[in-house]
């Protein structure tokens, strides 16, 4: 009996948080993904890096269930939440109502939970603001809070820091890592920023022309030193694959 249980536990721990098997996606004539294979351990941060148009956002949309693969299999272990590049807040709902949007609970409970996650992302004070009055960084924090309120097992981030200024972006990186440590969800971060990927991720998937060009793990402890020679070598490797000269 005990053995059976531990087998089950072992099997569960081996279930990947996120996986894609021979995934193809075509839009009419255009093939966006051709045979993508990848597997991400539970609780890991994977960064999917590539040029714009390489299919990385399409892959994320498949994981999110917003699109279906033309062939192949996508699997996600548990509940999925997503934060988009545009914070995508409903302009006619207050910040807290945006966060609680879709939460099927009584109004008082919705509000309580929304305030709690807003506090978590450091926006407790702005719960009653209109989205139009928020800065870009604040908007993305609300989007994160809205993703967190559903207690996701997998958090999908579609270039959520892409439109932010450099300083705000660093703050958001720290916030994301803190939330990840606290909640232990699997994170799939789509980005075109190689440094961002190398700073945050446990494993990096380099996507190009619809295929996985490279996949490697990064063992280095966080916070990571960008001046470390190892970091520089990985950076050169990824940029080389993407055909960009490293400076």
């Amino acid at each position: 009996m005990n053995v059976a249980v531990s087998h089950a536990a072992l099997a569960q721990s081996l279930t990947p948080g996120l996986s894609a098997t021979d995934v193809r996606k075509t839009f009419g004539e255009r093939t966006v993904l051709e045979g993508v294979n990848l597997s991400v351990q539970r609780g890991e941060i994977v960064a999917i890096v590539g040029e714009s148009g390489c299919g990385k956002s399409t892959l994320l949309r498949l994981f999110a269930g917003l699109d279906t693969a033309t062939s192949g299999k996508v699997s996600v272990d548990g509940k999925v939440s997503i934060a988009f590049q545009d914070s995508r807040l409903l302009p006619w709902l207050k910040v807290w109502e945006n966060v609680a949007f879709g939460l099927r609970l009584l109004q008082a409970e919705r509000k309580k939970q929304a305030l709690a996650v807003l506090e978590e992302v450091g926006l407790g004070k702005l719960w009653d603001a209109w989205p139009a009055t928020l800065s870009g960084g604040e908007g993305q924090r609300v989007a994160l809070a809205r993703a967190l309120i559903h207690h996701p097992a997998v958090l999908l981030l579609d270039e959520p820091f892409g439109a932010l200024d450099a300083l705000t972006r660093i703050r958001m990186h720290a916030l994301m890592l803190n939330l990840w440590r606290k909640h232990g969800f699997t994170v799939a971060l789509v980005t075109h920023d190689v440094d961002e990927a190398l700073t945050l991720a446990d494993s990096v998937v380099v996507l190009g022309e619809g295929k996985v060009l490279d996949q490697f793990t990064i063992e280095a402890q966080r916070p990571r030193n960008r001046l470390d020679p190892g970091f520089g070598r990985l950076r050169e490797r990824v940029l080389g694959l993407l055909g960009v000269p490293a400076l």
Partner: protein
Amino acid sequence: MVFAQTEFQHDKSDGPVPLDAKDRLTQIVSRFIPRTFPWSIVRRSVTPLLLIALWQYATAVGWVDPAVLAPPSQVWATFVELSSTGEILVHVLTSLQRVLLGLAIGGTVAVMLGVASGLSKLGEEAIDPPLQMIRAMPSLGTAPLLVIWLGIDEGVKVGLVAIGVVFPLYINLYKGIRGIDRRFAELAQMCGASRRELLTRVILPGALPSALVGLRLSLGIAWLSLVIGEGINAQGGIGYLVAQGRNALQTDWIILGLVLYAILGLLMEALVRLLEWRLLPWSRGFLK
């Protein structure tokens, strides 16, 4: 840092720029008048007041025959006379009632049709083509038909208003619903929102600004339709005053009627603006 400081000092050493005469006058005047005095309103009222004065003067010195165009003073006198008996209030209320009834009927039809064709492709295919065909006809031109169908008394008046109101409201509501960002539907899916939530928290609030624009356009057409409707067979209402003036060759009655139409139209427009202010608090930043 040091560099900035020296530059700053250099600026200062130039000393205050001497005031010219105009600035000095402004300074003296502003000592007697509070800074927040609404000068803009005063400046804006000058031209209209001058025009009214010119109109009065032109009839007084005989440039214009008072029989052709009654002076403002006479219009005012007629207004005071009719107000004292309470007659004018009855006419105004009669007209207002016709417009509101027409708005209610036309508005209900427009909302039902707009929501149906906005929310479903099938609804659009069923509703939109015939409505666009009817729209191509001038709504005021349906008056003779309405007289036959609904009668020459209240029917044609309320009917004209109702028909005129339908199209602007329908088109803008439909457009408002269809114009909602598709990405919000994706968001609703990801957040696990129910169909009801999608409707009440995404679609309807998203379409509201456009619908209110439609309502404002509808109001303009409503008053225009009423003027035509009351002109056909005026029994009470502001149109009755105008018809009386026409029959007796009294231009002051006609002008009084027109001014009353204008005031009521403006008041209802203001009401819709107030409605916008109340219903769209999230967009106040852009409305300013």
